[in-house]
């Protein structure tokens, strides 16, 4: 092999190694970039979840104070009275409040007729979707007739 050929091959090898290094760097950069975007997405979902939970629990139609929902108001709540307004607030999400304590094995939706044996209150049925993340927060459930407070969990199905 001539000297010129050896130098030519040497140059090709150097170029190849440089290209590998550049691609490795780009791969690392984009993998970290994707990871940071995913993390940002999760954080934005968390912000959205916090705002949503607070705004729903604070709705004057159903609230009874800080971190508290009036069960009678939830049962009487009817979003069809101003569907356009509530559509903007709920954005098609399903929102329900589970009764956690006192423990209760019932699974039925609570209405004014079955309050002693029901499992959850439905605020809005929303549009069913597979691609949802359920966010939940603790809330007090107030029963105005007895003046009692129960422990509940508000569950909001947020679209991903």
């Amino acid at each position, binding site marked *: 092999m001539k000297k010129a050929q050896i130098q030519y091959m040497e140059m090709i090898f150097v170029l190849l190694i440089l290209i590998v290094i550049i691609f490795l760097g780009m791969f*690392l950069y984009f993998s970290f970039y994707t990871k940071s975007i995913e993390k940002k997405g999760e954080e934005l979902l968390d912000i959205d979840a916090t705002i949503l939970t607070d705004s729903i629990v604070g709705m004057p139609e159903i609230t009874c104070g800080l971190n508290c929902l009036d069960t009678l108001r939830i049962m009487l709540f009817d979003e069809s009275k101003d569907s356009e307004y509530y559509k903007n607030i709920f954005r098609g999400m399903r929102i329900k409040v589970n009764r956690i*304590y006192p423990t209760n094995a019932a699974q039925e939706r609570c209405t004014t007729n079955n309050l002693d044996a029901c499992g959850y209150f439905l605020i809005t049925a929303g549009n069913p979707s597979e691609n949802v993340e359920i966010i939940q927060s603790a809330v007090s459930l107030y029963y105005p007739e007895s003046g009692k*407070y129960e422990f509940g969990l508000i569950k909001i199905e947020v679209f991903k």
Partner: protein
Amino acid sequence: MKRGQIEIIGLLMVVILISVIMLVALWFIIKPESDSLTVQRKGIEGKSILLTLMQTNYDRDRSFKDMIVECSKYDLVDAEHCNNSGVKDEIEVILNLIFNNKEYAFEIKKEVSVGNFISVIQIGSPITNPCRVNNVANHANINVDVVEKVSATLVLCSSTF
């Protein structure tokens, strides 16, 4: 400069370049998690659990807050009416229902003198080392009763509950 020296300098530059890339990559990999919004949200969730718990009725006329304040008046870690009967067990029922086998730590403590606390009720993992499986601990703390100097702490170990 001889050709051999130039090639050694070239090799050194490549080695330095690769080392810098590796160091930057390593910095990204081992960089500790910042106090992200998710962690802050967990703190808010913990606080809302504690506030809701205190407001919840223990029996017809008394809330958990009333019971806890009553318990703490005895200055006893194992006050019979707090630990062996209702209050502790009922709080444990609620927390187990919420966390569903996930790690957590809960403590009610009372300040008996400045900086000196006694534990009134303790549930779940030890409060000093709460998260053995998942190392991320989110602490939430509320004052149950300012006059009696009773406070409640809840430590969430998982990202979801």
